């Protein structure tokens, strides 16, 4: 909980606002990544064949297996710790971070073999007094395209820290 500070907004956040990051690339998406994702998110029921049955999927409008909408091709980076997604709040305050939600717009589906490129920017932020004291709300914009330059997804993610 943030106590003893007037603001959680750092100069680094002010500076980063609106600036796109350098793009980073996902590892190539595999059929098995998609299958496991679908099993986990449909657990304990069997996921739809669109996500794992290549013969079935070939007969759909998609012409092959596609990933579930929420599939994350950036999971499991080799290098740890992961670089911070955005500029950090003020130093010296121990904060809990939670996921406040998101709005996503979708274009092309992700498929086996795709390599997704992501760029991110801190679109906006604000802070207010809440249930846990001073609470910082950040809005990160994350844009994904595939190896053909086609639009895959735009996310506006709300982060809450207190």
């Amino acid at each position, binding site marked *: 909980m943030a106590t003893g500070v007037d603001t959680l907004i750092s100069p680094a956040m002010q500076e980063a606002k609106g600036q796109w990051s350098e793009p980073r690339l996902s590892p190539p998406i595999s059929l098995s990544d998609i299958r496991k994702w679908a099993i986990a998110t449909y*657990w304990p029921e069997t996921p739809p064949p669109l996500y794992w049955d290549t013969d079935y999927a070939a007969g759909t409008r998609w012409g092959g297996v596609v990933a579930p909408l929420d599939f994350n091709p950036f999971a499991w980076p080799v290098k740890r710790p992961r670089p911070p997604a955005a500029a950090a709040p003020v130093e010296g305050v121990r904060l809990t971070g939670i996921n406040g*939600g998101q709005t996503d717009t979708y274009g092309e589906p992700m498929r086996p073999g795709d390599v997704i490129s992501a760029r991110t920017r801190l679109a906006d932020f604000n802070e207010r007094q809440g249930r846990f004291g001073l609470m910082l709300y950040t809005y990160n914009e994350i844009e994904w395209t595939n190896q053909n330059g086609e639009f895959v997804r735009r996310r506006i993610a709300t982060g809450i820290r207190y």
Partner: protein
Amino acid sequence: MSVNVYFDDVRVGDEMPTWSRQTNFMHWNRYAAVNDEFVPFHMDDEDGRKAGNAAGAFGMGNLRYAYLANALRDWIGDEGEIREVGCQYRAINQKNDTLSVVGKVVEKEVVDGENQVRLETNVMNQNGEATCPGHAVVVLPNKR
């Protein structure tokens, strides 16, 4: 080919079928395993309490989002498209909660040649609490 619902047949006020899961560590750990989301407060009761949840560890917002996406996909079938999804995480997903995704059609219109259907969505728990208000836009085929 799997078309569950045609644009022509959808009416404002229609509700999509409810999609439910009871969630606990069996679900959260599987999700953590695919999304690499081993955040202490999702994994350990003591860390959950430290984060302000007296009941201990709690479920991932991202998994609730997955349930929402799955509910939409199961409703529209493989030939439909999901164009937009948004939601806010308002209440915590406690251990053994039964989460039910619900959605109601609030608008249908053709936008840039797409048959778009807009829904208000939510994820309800077994106590009738709305944990995740949101919306979605899906694109549905015409009958031929």
